[in-house]
């Protein structure tokens, strides 16, 4: 518990750093937001008025603190393109992203660890070779291309799964409908990360198998199956955990592409649209929100790591 508090306190400078980077990078965007909103025929008076309303007539540092203060109160500003509060839009979108990325993350962790372990236990057998080949292929296919090919095969040709979206437009909306829509994008998103996790798991299991304590287990006469499951896997999971935390970042990143390919109504698609429309506040808010969630997620990974590995003090 103490550790949790300590860890949260350590996260504050990181999150502050993120706010500084997000704010100042995005305030470098050339052009005048007021002109962008009002269009190029706006009168100078109107532009000036809107700039004052948006608080853009103040200095950069002052604006940062105003923005930060608002953030802390949960006010992310208003998206001019969508004409609604940024936070409302983000929360709605983030739910969809979380469902997609979360599913993909669980898929890649479970399947990646299983495949990597199996591959190490059966090193140099046919199983190992097939997994190694699959992993190599998996990490070399761009997820967006894979997504497109899956749509062609499973949605267009075989007609097993819907082409895109999160729910059917007519009559859908229940849990089964969601699962039906989720299958393809989640698999496409999980693929690369699964490959990376499997690869790292294989190597770390092989390294663990050489450790003295594994020899001790064998010297005790422990059955080989128990050696692998009780002694090797237990420690493998602890070593792989930080890697999984890192993969969560990659899954989240990949979700941007997958959301676009599958028309998934998530944060990634929102961000790309916002950039193309120069909707700065929405970009700022979206980036900030996702980055902060990622920091929290990594704190959670750290905590689990501590619970599983008593050596960390």
């Amino acid at each position, binding site marked *: 518990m103490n550790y949790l508090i300590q860890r949260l306190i350590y996260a504050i400078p990181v999150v502050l750093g993120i706010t500084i980077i997000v704010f100042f990078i995005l305030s470098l965007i050339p052009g005048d937001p007021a002109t962008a909103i009002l269009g190029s025929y706006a009168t100078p008076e109107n532009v000036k008025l809107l700039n004052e309303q948006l608080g853009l007539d103040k200095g950069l540092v002052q604006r940062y603190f105003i923005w930060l203060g608002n953030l802390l109160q949960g006010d992310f500003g208003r998206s001019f393109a969508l004409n609604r509060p940024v936070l409302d839009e983000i929360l709605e979108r983030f739910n969809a992203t979380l469902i997609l990325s979360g599913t993909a993350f669980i898929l890649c962790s479970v399947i990646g660890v299983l495949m990597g372990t199996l591959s190490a236990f059966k090193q140099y057998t046919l199983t190992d070779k097939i997994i190694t080949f699959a992993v190599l292929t998996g990490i070399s296919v*761009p997820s967006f291309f894979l997504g497109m090919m899956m749509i062609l095969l499973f949605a267009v040709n075989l007609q097993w799964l819907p082409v895109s979206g999160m729910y059917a437009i007519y009559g859908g909306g229940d849990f089964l409908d969601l699962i039906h829509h989720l299958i393809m994008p989640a698999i496409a998103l999980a693929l690369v990360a699964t490959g990376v996790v499997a690869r790292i798991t294989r190597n770390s299991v092989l390294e663990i198998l*050489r450790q003295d304590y594994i020899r001790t287990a064998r010297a005790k*006469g422990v059955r080989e199956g128990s050696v692998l499951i009780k002694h090797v896997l237990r420690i493998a999971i602890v070593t792989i955990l930080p890697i999984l935390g890192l993969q969560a970042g990659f899954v989240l990143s990949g979700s941007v592409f997958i959301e676009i390919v599958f028309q998934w109504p998530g944060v990634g698609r929102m961000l790309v649209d916002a950039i193309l429309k120069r909707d*700065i506040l929405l970009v700022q808010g979206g980036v900030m929100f996702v980055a902060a969630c990622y920091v929290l997620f990594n704190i959670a990974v750290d905590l689990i790591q501590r619970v599983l590995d008593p*050596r960390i003090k």
Partner: protein
Amino acid sequence: MINLYKLISRNRLALFGGVLLILIFIISFLSPILPLKDPDITKTSDRFLLPFSDGYLLGTDHLGRDLLSRLLWGTRLSLLVGISAALISATIGSILGTIAGFYGNKTDNVIMRLIDVLMAFPYILLALAIVAVLGPGLFNAMIAVALVNIPFFARNIRGVTVTIANKEFIEAAKLSGMNNFQIIIYEIFPNILPVIVVTISTTIGWMILETAGLSFLGLGSQPPQADLGSMLGEARSALIVNPHTSYVPGAMIFLIVIGVNLFGDGIRDALDPRLSKGQLIKPQPVTQIKSLGKVNPKPNTFFSVENLTTAFEFDKKLYLASKNVSFDIKKGECLGLIGESGSGKSVTALSITCLVASPPGVITDGSINYSGKNILEMDYEELRKIRGNKISYIFQDPLSTLHPLIKIGKQLEEAFIEHSESKNNEASLRGKELLKLVQIPNIENVWNSYPHELSGGMRQRVSIAMALTNDPELIIADEPTTALDVTVQAQILSILDSLRKKRGLSVLFISHDFGVVSQICDRVIVMYGGQIVEQGKTENIMKQPRHPYTKQLMECVPHIGYGKRKLPTILGSPPSITHKKQLGCSFADRCFNKKNNCMELNIEISKKGDSDVRCLYPHE
């Protein structure tokens, strides 16, 4: 470099990746001089022609542009952008990493905290933010991808630089008057270059994918100019009706990335020391056994080792670690096995229940006879029932030999449960009883502790308790007191000795220390260079060592109360294990009594006085 080439060419997949990449490079970079149509000429009458149509090998896209031409020009662009991004981020990242690692302290802190903040973003967010600022465009996308990957290089390079910066040759360079800049350029840079190369080779595939991704989103190359990513992005709207426009660029991205990955893996494997040492090969549960001579087990001996030869196999060559070792142990006897590190004593001990890691370990000859059976001929299940049950081990360093994540109690119970049908509570009663036996105070505490929470002496007591779990007949103690300080060492020895006498245990006690062996062993075997060089009763050997090696080894033991003297050492070092056949005495190089014929023939072990000695000129 030649070495690298050799290693890669040995790896067929890496070679394939390399060739694939070179082909793609050549074709795409020749595109300006190849007889191709202009990639940007649109012809609406020829929209969406299929591959192999008249005049268009790969067909046309939604504007009637030649796909082959666009593909090659696009590949060229994608490669250029990906490689430039990799070089930019490698350069900046390496500079930052080197500075942070070399200067340390505040500089390090500031740079690394900054890197931490950058790493706190999922990379795409940062890339999107950068593109948002700079505006969509291929050059800007490249900058974004390069910046996003800087932390990765900086972290890797910093780690290596820190280790290098603490080495002696950097100190020497400082003393020779080089300034920091010169040291970084001439001393550090050549040493981190391989790491930079490996990092580039493992990330360049990512970077090509990332730039293609940004272009795919419409944030990279802008029409009419097209790289592979934007080709795919444009093709997406026609995916269902005209999928061939998607296949073409998508397949090319896949080929490039798989080529980079195969080749990069090849480089990484070639430079990874763990692979060349075989540390990433799964060890089998039983040591590999090859070509055993037929041995008739002796019916009357309790335990004997005959002619045991264990080798390590590298590159199809056998390096013999123990050669034709034979000895026996009687019931209730404590046999000492003594020698320097590398003498083959631990390998001999591990061979007894086939625990030598294999690969590379191989038992090439001999038999190990235990109550009328040859252990080397047993199947796995039969052997498993002996391990930890009839024959058990105490290892040297219990911090690394006890499982770090399993509580002591569980580890003790496991030893019991694996060899009996009984219930858990019986196992825990047994375990606690054993902890009492090895004189552990507050048993409940220790029971619920992890190994790292105990002191070295406590851990070794636990190991002894674990070895005793199933009332074994033989305990093999491999340097059980070496990692402990002297007072604890004495306690452990006395526990071991009294248990042995009380229970009539046989012990094979391995050590490099004559002082320790003389305290508890009935008989002693001295090993050198994988061979037994002398054996006999402890008191006889202590009184009258015959082999020059034994004599010198004994002189290395300090004696309390005999006044000051210079502690002698044995000059030279033990022979390294080779795969070549060697003739003569392996100790000859370091022996004061060496005569000419010592190297001429193999010397057999023979009786001399009360002991057996392998020497032509033993001490009288």
